[in-house]
């Protein structure tokens, strides 16, 4: 469903991704696993269309969406949703407004119903009139996810969504995320540096190191990998 062919990307003069090729199946959760600075977030931004690749091409559903130094399909037309690392909740909008904003601006129908539906799904109904700064960390995460899902994306990009949460809350939200694929017919690309998170929910794990793929496969395959870097990474 999502293919990256020979992608390279630089920030300034620094090469972040170097000739990387990757494919992620539809209706699966693919986890990009690696330490900080290995290029995980960059890959998400390239798929979202927020950055242009320096070389290579990105294909979604057999359609080229990005190629060398060019955004062929604009981000808003790629049917992707993204949960940013800092969540990017708009602080001047209530929870309801944060979720409804995209629907309203796109002039979609049944805005209220759809917002309430997603609020109910995530158990956020009572927080609808609160502002982000009045929510706990976990509630904010859920609002960020709800905001993306209400627009019915085909692909959900999640950039370390559980970074600041406690174990109990993580488990709760991971359960939610696992259900999302089934409930919303999604393809999820999930970025994390925590292999336990990855192993809990991933259908496929891709281990990255310095902008290159070290190993990719199922959870079991990764656990049993003979790759020195992967073994080293999983130990810690």
């Amino acid at each position, binding site marked *: 469903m999502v293919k990256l062919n020979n992608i390279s990307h630089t920030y300034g003069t620094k090469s972040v991704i170097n000739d990387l090729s990757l494919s992620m199946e539809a209706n699966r959760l693919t986890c990009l696993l690696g330490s900080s600075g290995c290029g995980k977030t960059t890959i998400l931004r390239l798929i*979202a269309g*927020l950055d242009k690749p320096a070389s290579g091409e990105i294909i979604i559903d057999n359609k080229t969406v990005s190629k060398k130094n060019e955004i062929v399909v604009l*981000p*808003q*037309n790629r049917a*992707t*949703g*993204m949960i*940013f*690392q*800092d*969540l*990017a*909740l*708009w*602080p*001047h909008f209530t929870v309801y407004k944060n979720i409804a*904003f*995209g629907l309203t*601006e*796109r002039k979609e129908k049944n805005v209220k119903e759809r917002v309430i539906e997603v609020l109910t799904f995530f158990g956020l109904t009572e927080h609808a009139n609160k*502002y*982000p*700064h009045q929510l706990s960390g976990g509630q*904010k995460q859920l609002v960020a996810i709800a*905001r*993306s899902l209400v*627009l019915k994306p085909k692909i959900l990009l999640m950039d370390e969504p559980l970074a600041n949460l406690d174990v109990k809350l993580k488990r709760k939200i991971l359960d939610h995320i696992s259900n999302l694929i089934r409930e919303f017919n999604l393809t999820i690309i999930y970025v994390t540096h925590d292999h336990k998170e990855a192993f809990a929910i991933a259908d496929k794990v891709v281990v990255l190191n310095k902008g290159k793929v070290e190993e990719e496969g199922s959870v079991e395959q990764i656990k049993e990998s003979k790759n020195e870097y992967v073994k080293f990474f999983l130990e810690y």
Partner: protein
Amino acid sequence: MGRTIIKQPLYTIVYLLFVLLVVFPVAYTFLLAFFNIDSLGKNLQLISIETVLLLLKSVLIAATVALFSTFSGTLLGFLLYKTKMKHSSFFKLALLIPLFISPYILAVAWKDFFFIMAGNSNIISSELGVALVLTTIYTPLAMLITGNAFSGIDSKLEESGFMIAGFHRTMSKITLPLIKPAVISSFVLIFIFSISEFSVPAILGVKVFTTEIFTQFSAFYNHSLAILQSALLLIICLLLLFAEGKYIADASFLSVGNRGNNTKTYQLNKRRLPGFLFVIIWLFISVILPFIILFFQTFNNETTNFIRAFKLLLPTFGNSITLATTGALVIVFIGFVAAYKNYLSQTQTKTGKSFDLFMLFLFATPSTIIGISLIRFYNHPALEFIYSGWTIIIIGFVAKFSFIAARLLGNAMKKIPASMDEAAQLEGISKFKRFLRIIVPLVLPSLFATFIISFIFSLGELGITIMVYPPGTEIMPIKVYTIMANAPQSLVSSMTLIVFSVTLLMIIGFYFIAKSIIKKQSYVVG
């Protein structure tokens, strides 16, 4: 280029209009001076070692003012924005008062004060005196800039410091470095203001570079030499900006709060009294003392001059307020467009850099030269509709103050994470809607602050206005300036108090308007 215009029509239009209507007239004046071979050779000979030494002296005075203002402003910013000091809201407003009063009036008040207390004003009529007066005038600017920066520090950043070190170490190693960009911006702004300031050194009888430029204009009518000398001034300011840009560009510390109003405020405990005393002493020196002098001068045995002053100034209120309000709106708009472009690009594009450079160029150019340039460019039958109306004054305001607006708003926008805009972009929200519904609300407090500062400066602007104001127009600062030449001191002081009161009333009015708009926005981004 074509694609850029289509992609960013508003930015392109604003940029082109700014360059054509504001920058070009002034740049043309400089080019004429440089390319007029006959006068250039003659005038270059007049730029002697004395000129260079005078420039160095002015640089030293300006640097001293910038240093002291930034230091005291940062201290005040910390005490009022970062601690739970009592009556801090009152102090924040009261300490801004020197910005509402024309510098030359304050200089006169100080001169009189020293004469009354010490029998002569020699102490103040010196380079140190100039530095003292200018420091009291510009410290509020530093307080505003750094106070805003203090308010934007995420509490988590400091709290993580407290896990390791005590209060002093956290302040010096975490808090202060985080506001370094604001401190540097404050220094640069005040330096440029001080080095371009003419009226205070003139009143105190201290020769500085700008008085030299003024002399060339008004005593020798040697416009081309005055312009060449201004070019030296510009070079200094550009060098400073270059150094500032280089330093801040490398700074990776930008702080954003994910929760609203989560900046940490401190109880001063045993430092409460010294802190409070410092604020009170500063308030006394910079505000109360000059006002005592002004009141003394106004009401010394009579009140008739106060009434006379009011009658003289009444016809000017409407014009001045309308001009200043419109000017401030246009200034904020241009500054916002420039800042937003840089925000969108995340790194400065070539046009972004040139926009900044043009604004700095105009900001550092002496007002008289801007005035002359505008006359030469617009005093043409085809442009009569601009020259003989109020538009020419607005152009002057834009030339002088758009740099400040762009700088203040640029700093505010840096605090908005790009992800806020990108999240909306992914939701399919148009660029214009993102601008209006995401960006504008998030910078609303900064927009208001910038508007107020632009309004105050526009209301008191004299140097350009006196050159271009349409005949028959009554404008406040011109009326005060022309009347004061041969008016009793009590009349001049009365006019000053009235101008101050009008300014204060307007700001209070704007504050209540803004409060009603902003009150629902119970958030802070950084």
